Each structure stands twice: as C-alpha cells, then as structure tokens.
C-alpha cells in the first residue's frame, strides 16, 4: 500500500522533474533527444552517487560537509597512484574506498561519541583533507584516469551507459537498506529523536557511525568515477558537490532535520538538479545570473517540500478561517 501523505514530498519531486522536462523541451527543443537525455542521466548519476551517503547521513539527523574533499582526495590519489594504468586499480580502488569509509567513520565518531556538532566536525575534516592534498600534490596533479575507470564512467554495454547500471544497483541496495533493514529502521529513529531511539534500545552510536562511514565510502567512489568522466583529476573538482549533494536530498523530500526521506527521492533530486543545470544555459543567462536562478529554484523547491513550511502555510490558512483563535 502506498501512503500518499508520507510520500507526498517524493511525488512532488518527481512531478517537479517532469514539469522541468516539459519546460526545457519548450525552451530548447533538442533537449528531449535520446542522446541528450542519456547524458543528463549520466551526469545525474554522479550527483546521485555522491548524494547516496548524504541521504543516509541527513536521514540520521546529521550532515556531511566533508564530501567535496573526500571525493577530491580519492580522485587525485587514484589517478596519481595508477598513473594511467589499469593494473594497479585492483588494490588502489579497494584501498581508497576503505580510506574514504575510514574518514567517514572518524566523522561519525566525532559526532556520536564526542558530541562535536556535525557541521563543525565534517567541515573541519573537509578542510584538513583539502590542505593535505594541496601539500601532497604541490598544487597541480596532472595524472589522467586509467581506461578501466573511463569505461565505468562513460562506457556503454549494448548502448546502455555503464554508470547507469552502477547507479541502479546502488539505488536498489540503498533502498533495501533504508526500508527493509534493521539499520534503516534505526537510522530513521536516530534522526527522528536520538533520545527516543536510546530509550528504545537502538544502538545509536553504531548507527550514526555507519551512516557517516557510508557517506565517506560513497564520496570516494564518486570521486574515482568522476575522474573517468573528466578524464583526469583536478583540485576543486569536488566543490560543486557540496551543495548539490545536500540539495538533491532535500529536493527529494527528506527533512534536513532528519528522520525522513529516502533514496528514491534523492534520485529525483539529482535529476532535477541536472535538468536545471542544462536548462538555464539554454535561457541565455550569464554565468552569474545562472547561479542566482539555480540557488533560488532550489530554495523554493526545498521550501515547498518541507514539512515546517507546509505546517506554516497550513496554520496561516487555519488562522484566516478563524479556528486558530482557540490557541
């Protein structure tokens, strides 16, 4: 049984996405071609994979601002270590995924065990990684991505983008984890109310650490895949993903305060953001104006979906009807 009330925000996200597609096809007629749609979905996949971890962390009531440089570090270290060769990837990729997960675990422990506010903890880790990579590379890494990675990012199997297959697998696993596993239950509980979760015997520490660990893992994975798309790693390549990873989750209907949302929503969020990015240049806006519109649209979308705004508008309507007076 589908509960409309509960999934209203997610439905809204998909409706918004369709609306945007229609709008785009009017403004830029070539947009709905198969080739263009495919490239849009591929671009959305990167956002979707980065936002995978962010989804878990935000549902658990936290936020991960270390995404950009975990992503960037994994990308730079992978290209440097592999030096364009496929062979070394066999141990480099697993090693870097574990390293990303470890960074996430440190975030989680800082938040759940030592009580550092998530914003501070993950921002600090982000800056530390940024500095570390700058020192390590001397400022200008030049290595290119190995062919295997490029295949994963831009290759096709029977005309179907490989990255999309990967994204679908990730989406299935993430959705099962959230809706059908004990970990998922605990995560929503911790995000709803850490106190209630504790009183109910939920392992809150382990749950929080696991969410951040997953986020570190996802960021590292996305970083390496992204080098395949851009053909090389460069400093600052992760920076756009800070805002987009959070925005995708929020547009997807999750409460930024935790306890609600799911990955199906995040997928819609990633698609909306990508379509928007494609649409705005078609309107012949300058780069600056483009950013302004981008920000405003995201703000409005997220606000419309947010429970508190809905409640606020609702109370406004009630007050005008006059039955708010009893309060």
């Amino acid at each position: 049984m589908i509960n409309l009330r509960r999934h209203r925000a997610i439905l809204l996200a998909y409706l918004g996405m369709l609306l945007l597609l229609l709008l785009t096809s009017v403004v830029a007629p070539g947009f709905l071609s198969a080739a263009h749609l495919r490239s849009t979905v591929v671009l959305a996949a990167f956002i979707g994979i980065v936002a995978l971890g962010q989804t878990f962390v935000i549902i658990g009531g936290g936020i991960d601002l270390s995404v950009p440089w975990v992503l960037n570090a994994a990308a730079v270290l992978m290209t440097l270590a592999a030096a364009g060769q496929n062979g070394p990837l066999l141990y480099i990729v697993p090693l870097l995924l574990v390293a990303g997960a470890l960074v996430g675990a440190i975030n989680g422990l800082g938040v759940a065990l030592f009580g550092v506010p998530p914003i501070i903890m993950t921002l600090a880790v982000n800056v530390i990684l940024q500095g570390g990579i700058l020192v390590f590379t001397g400022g200008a890494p030049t290595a290119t991505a190995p062919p295997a990675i490029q295949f994963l990012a831009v290759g096709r199997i029977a005309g179907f983008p490989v990255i999309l297959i990967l994204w679908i697998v990730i989406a299935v696993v993430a959705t099962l984890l959230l809706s059908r596993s004990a970990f998922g239950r605990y995560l929503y509980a911790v995000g709803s109310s850490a106190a209630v979760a504790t009183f109910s015997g939920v392992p809150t520490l382990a749950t929080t650490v696991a969410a951040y660990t997953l986020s570190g893992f996802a960021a590292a994975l996305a970083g390496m895949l992204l080098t395949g798309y851009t053909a090389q790693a460069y400093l600052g390549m992760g920076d756009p993903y800070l805002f987009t990873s959070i925005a995708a989750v929020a547009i997807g209907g999750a409460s930024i305060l935790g306890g609600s949302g799911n990955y199906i929503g995040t997928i819609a969020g990633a698609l909306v953001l990508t379509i928007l990015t494609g649409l705005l240049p078609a309107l012949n806006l300058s780069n600056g104006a483009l950013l302004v519109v981008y920000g405003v649209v995201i703000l409005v979308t997220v606000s419309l979906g947010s429970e508190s705004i809905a409640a606020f508008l609702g109370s406004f309507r009630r007050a005008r009807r006059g039955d708010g007076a009893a309060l």
Partner: protein
Amino acid sequence: MTDFLKATAVVKRYGGIVALGRADLSARAGEVHALLGENGAGKSTFIQILAGAVRADSGTITLAGEAYRPKNPEAAQAAGVAAVFQELSLIPDLTVAENVWFRHEPLSPLGTVRAATLNAATAELFARYRFPDIRPDREVRRLTLAERQVVEIGKALSRNPRVLILDEATSALPPAETEWLLGLARSVAAAGTLVIYISHRLGEVRAIADRITVFRNGETVAAYETQAVDDETIIADMLGRRMDRLYPPRVATATDRVALGLRGFGAGSKLSGIDLDLKEGEVLGVAGLQGHGQRELFQALFGLGRAEGSVALWGQPRDIRSPRAALSGRDGLALVPEDRRSHGLMLAKSIRENLTLSVVRRFTRFGLTDPTREQALVEEMIRTLRIKADSPEQPAGTLSGGNQQKVIFGKMLLTEARILLLYDPTRGIDVGTKGEIFTLMRRLAAEGYAILFYSSDLAELVHVADRVAVLRNGRLAAVLEGDDNSEHGILRAAMIERAAA
C-alpha cells in the same frame, strides 16, 4: 490586621481542564503564609497568576487594597510581587551579578552598566541577607544547582518585593542553605514583607509559617493558624475523599520468586542504599515527594546514568549500562518513561514504526525485515491494548495522550521483558484509559510479570500496588503493605522525618 493580599474565587481553565476551580487566599503583610497541596492541586497555577505569568479567567485579587491584575511578569514585579520558581530563570552565560540585576540594572549617569557597580551592588545585597558565599562575578553556568537556586532568591530580593513567593525553594538546597533560607524568610517577613511559602516539607512549614492555606483539586479547602492545627488534619485536607471505582480488584498474585533484587543500589548523590525485592507477579509501588530519588531509581535501573550497588534479574547478577542492555528480551527489563513526547515516541512516525522499534530483530530474516511478520506483531498489540487509530500508519503524534501511552506500552510489551518499570504512566491521561492501564497492569502481574510502578498520584499506588516503597531524600523510608498502604501512611513516610511505624 487587614489582609494585604486577598484572592477571591480565582478560576483558571486550560481548554477543558480546570486548573483552578475556586482559589481563595487571604494573607497579611509581615507573615509567612504557607500554601500546601498535592501535586496538581493548583498551587503552581495560583502563584503563576500572582506572578503575572498566567492570567486568571475570573475572580478578583487585591493587593494592599487595590485591584491587582498583572498583565505580565514585568507588571507583577512593578507592583512589588517577586517569585522564585522551581524552574530556574537564570541565564547561564551571564554572571551572578548580571542575573540578579537583569533588566533593572543600576545605571551610571551616562546610562551605561558597569560590571564593578553591579558586582558591588550584588555583594551588598548578599551581605544584607547573609547569603552563602557566592562570588558576584562568576558565570552562572559554573554554579551548582543549589547555588543557582540561591542566586534566584537574590534576584527576587533585589527588587525589594512587598510579596515574596518561594515555590519549593528548598528542594534543591542542602541542609545548611535550607536553614539559611528558613531564617531569611522569617526575617524578610519580620521587616514587613508577605512571604508566600510553598513546600512539601511539613517540618519546614511548621518551623516558619504563621498561617497555612490548603489547596485540593484546584480549590481552597482550608486555612489555619499554624499553631492551631496538627499534621494529621493538614494531610487529611490535602487528600480529601476520592472515588475508587477506577481501580480493578486487586488479587495478590506475587510468588516467592524474586524478579528484581536490589542491594545497596544507588545513583549519584540523589539515591543510595536501596535494598528492595520485586517479586514475580507483583506490582510494587514507588512513592515519594518530587525530587526524592524516584526518577533516579528508574533511570539507573534502565541503564541511563551511573548506578552503584548490585542488581539481579531473576536471580542473575546484571550490570546494565544502557537501555539497550536492559532490553535484552525475556530476561530483561523495559521502561515506560516519564516524558512521553521526548523519550517515548517518535511523534512524526507511524504507530507501526513506534511499536516495533525495539524489536526489529524479531521480524528480520536474512538481513531483511519481513513486513508480514511485522504487521502481525503490530496488529496483535493494537488489539490487546485497544489502541484507537485509523490505521497502523497513522503518525503517533496525532493520537490522544492515552493512545500514545498505549503505543509506548505496546513497544515495551513486544520486547517480552517481564520486568516492567512504569514511571508515572497515567499522568495527563483521561480517566477511561487510566482504568484500562490499571487493569492491564494487574493482568500482566497475574501472568507473571513483575512491575515497578511510580505514580505522582498516591491514590493509584494505594489501589493498584501490592506494596509501596516510599523514598525520602534518596533513601528507602518505608515499605508499606496491607493497611499501612494508605495515602495517609505514604505521605507520613514521605514527609515526616521519622519513618512511619
């Protein structure tokens, strides 16, 4: 002497709930006037009206012969009424002096506030009333709870009040400071101020009050000169008569098997040296005045906070350090917490998700939850507890208080723990659901559950519990059963320094 403060037929309702039905009070300047009553009798509402925090629906109050109807706390203070509440109003980041003079700071000719002036004024104020030693320039966050309470009193005195209200002001104070405060109340009154003194401690009231007014169920039921009345009469006035058809018949179902055995159990400075056995099939009541260790007992048993001494569950020694460790299935213990909304329920989540949160593993197979099995558990609980809801997917926050409490009960019953800790499970719940909860408790006891039951309503303990353990100052004052298990007996043990015979 004429009445300085006179309240007549003061009424206050919150929606359909009557907080004050008809409160009357006459008090003279220069006396200490005690206000007594059980929790929920309306004392707090009444003094909040006096302090301007709440506005009465009807009734008249006169102060020094003039109509007194303060719009807000500022107006009350301007009229010379200062109150010290149980909930502290200090700002942790400000210093003692800044708090004392908050919003009526002594100003320099330029209209500025100087720290030195504030500190000097505070030191002078503290010296005049022989305050315990607290430095005016310390940050309030660094003070102990008792010290904050003292600062709160200083803040009230800094306004040179004509009426000083002290609401349970000694509950956080150690003995020496309590003595000081009692002396202070007397000397302030001797200087012409009316002191309204609210305390559960009859001994204190006897020591300082000139007169006593007793509230019960929102109404004034008696007023006395302190010398002209004995403790027994006051307690009888506080309790009144009650209907008791609310309660199911009590059939003794306790066996000899000890479910929960405590030896030398304690928690921090609030609870110590508790020796107690809860038996299989027994409902053991816990009683005590507010802040005498009941909360600490329940929290420590459930693994929240540090505990000392030994705990044995069903004969096995256990070291429970977290709720997760407590909720270990059939041999564990489960808690229905005091604060439904912030500790018991995820308000935005469905009844189903709330009910099964503690037992996700019971319906998880090969790492995946099984919705069919979950649904079976949920439906079983909704049926047994008669939870009234449109569907199991309804958010728990939209249920009535009674049904919310049933969901919490259901969550704990699903854990299969056979030792239940119930902390004030009927507070704020309609009478019908109360009856259902009592019936459920007796039925569970008959099935072999062991129940530890605290209630702020003494009548519930008397009528539902097999025995009642009374706490006073964090220690076990008495265990009452049979005829001794009466509201009278409990109050005596909880309030009067010697244990009840």
